[in-house]
């Protein structure tokens, strides 16, 4: 007997899936990023002989091992919920992506085995450190491969491949139009997200601890996390642009909805979070440059200029194109859509804002890395600099959740109907052969 059309009271079945997946991603992205950051840190400790790197790598590895349970439990619960609440949709995905799901399962298994082995043999391989570091990177590699597999499915749901014959269904669906840019976007995002969370955690511990040696360590941890967080964040505008370009070419209606249409407010929220991340990070760098071992006043003044430009460019990104702010809840002041704001247009202002933000970001982090090479006096950072790091950790979580919502809501152009697989399978799990570019799917529906 097949599963009936079940619904969940109060919150609805869509929210169940959203909650399970978004929470899972918050853990999964952290685990992939953290494993690679920890492995790199262990390598840096081996090369530089600085104890902070080794201590940090080992503690982070332990935390990841323990956190794996939560991430995995959410993943399993999600699959169970998907099979129960969307059985037709799941069987369609299985028909196309069986091998992809199988590979993902084994990559996941490989990641668990290697991460646990990596942490457990830390002392045993203390004199064969190079080999031990390799364990960490292999665990990270397995995680990235698992992510690549699920990215193929996630990108297919928004931009289903143009397929005309059964023989090319799997390959073309795997390498659909936005699979590579989405994968790159998430690859970079893992490092940035994990880096900001590590920085926030370091800041929290810095403010709580009373021992000088511990304050020095957590001050260093905040700095190290932020280099990863901000360093990878400033690559995202170009990669994110590539991803959006793919969506615009393959699913123009979805692109218009999230960039110009009724859901443009989610993108405005996103750039607002990125503005906070960029300004808080740059302000932290400016503050930290006061504590270089060798005084670097010129570098600091340049960084102050960088902070000003960061604020200018991020504000440029936030300005909406018109006053139709959030039409869903009636937030359309001053004439709504009819009141346009010239500085809010995509061309040229948003492009100037995004490119400017990247260039200034690279400039500021180059200055900071230059200062890092000579060293800092640790343990002297002010309280507000730590608040800046903690706000980065908070806003990066909001960024992740907002981006997830943006991608999923892009398939609900006018919500009549909303799609699970864009233009192919509706939210009520019905195949729409007339609009679906994946012909084997349409043919299966008409049989």
């Amino acid at each position, binding site marked *: 007997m097949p599963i009936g059309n079940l*619904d969940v*009271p*109060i*919150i*609805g079945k*869509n*929210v169940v899936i*959203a*909650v399970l997946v*978004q*929470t899972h991603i*918050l*853990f999964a992205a952290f685990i992939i990023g953290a494993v690679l950051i920890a492995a790199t840190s262990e390598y840096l400790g081996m090369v530089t002989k600085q104890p902070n790197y080794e201590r940090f790598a080992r503690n982070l590895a*332990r*935390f990841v091992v*323990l*956190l794996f*349970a*939560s991430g995995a439990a*959410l993943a399993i619960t999600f699959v169970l919920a998907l099979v129960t609440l969307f059985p037709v949709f799941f069987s369609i995905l299985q028909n196309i992506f069986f091998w992809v799901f199988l590979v993902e399962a084994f990559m996941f298994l490989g990641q668990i085995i290697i991460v646990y082995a990596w942490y457990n043999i830390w002392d045993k391989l203390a004199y064969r450190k190079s080999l031990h570091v390799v364990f960490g990177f292999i665990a990270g590699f397995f995680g990235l491969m698992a992510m690549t597999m699920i990215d193929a499915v996630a990108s297919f749901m928004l931009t289903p491949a143009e397929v005309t014959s059964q023989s090319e269904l799997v390959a073309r669906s795997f390498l659909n139009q936005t699979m590579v840019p989405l994968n790159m976007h998430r690859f970079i995002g893992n490092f940035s997200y994990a880096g900001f969370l590590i920085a926030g955690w370091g800041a929290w511990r810095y403010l709580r601890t009373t021992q000088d040696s511990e304050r020095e360590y957590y001050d260093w941890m905040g700095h190290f996390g932020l280099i990863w967080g901000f360093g990878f964040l400033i690559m995202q505008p170009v990669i994110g642009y590539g991803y959006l370009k793919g969506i615009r070419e393959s699913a123009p209606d979805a692109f218009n909805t999230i960039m110009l249409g009724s859901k443009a407010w989610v993108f405005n929220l996103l750039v607002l979070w990125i503005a906070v991340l960029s300004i808080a990070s740059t302000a932290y760098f400016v503050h930290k440059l006061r504590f270089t071992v060798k005084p670097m006043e010129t570098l600091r003044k340049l960084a102050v200029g960088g902070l000003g430009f960061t604020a200018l460019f991020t504000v440029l990104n936030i300005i909406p194109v018109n006053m139709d702010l959030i*039409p*869903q*809840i009636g937030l359309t002041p001053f004439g709504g859509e009819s009141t346009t704001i010239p500085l809010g247009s995509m061309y040229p202002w948003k492009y100037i804002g995004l490119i400017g933000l990247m260039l200034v970001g690279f400039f500021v982090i180059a200055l900071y890395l230059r200062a890092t090479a000579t060293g800092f006096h640790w343990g002297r950072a002010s309280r507000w600099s730590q608040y800046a790091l903690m706000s980065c950790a908070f806003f990066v*979580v909001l960024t992740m*959740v907002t981006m997830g919502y943006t991608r999923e*809501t892009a398939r*609900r152009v006018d*919500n009549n109907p*909303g799609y699970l697989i864009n233009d192919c399978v509706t*939210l009520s799990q019905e195949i729409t052969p007339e609009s679906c570019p994946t012909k084997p799917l349409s043919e299966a529906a008409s049989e």
Partner: protein
Amino acid sequence: MIDLALLLLQEGTTANPTGLGVFRFFAAFTLIITFFISFLGFTYWISKDE
């Protein structure tokens, strides 16, 4: 009251620009953040005494 209960029990979507849609949007967000912070906190708690 009964109308509200019926509204909450009906099928619908989070993108629906009605009171129900807005409620579900924030319900989802609250649940995500609650689960995330709880699981992270729990993991920290079981790891800190080692």
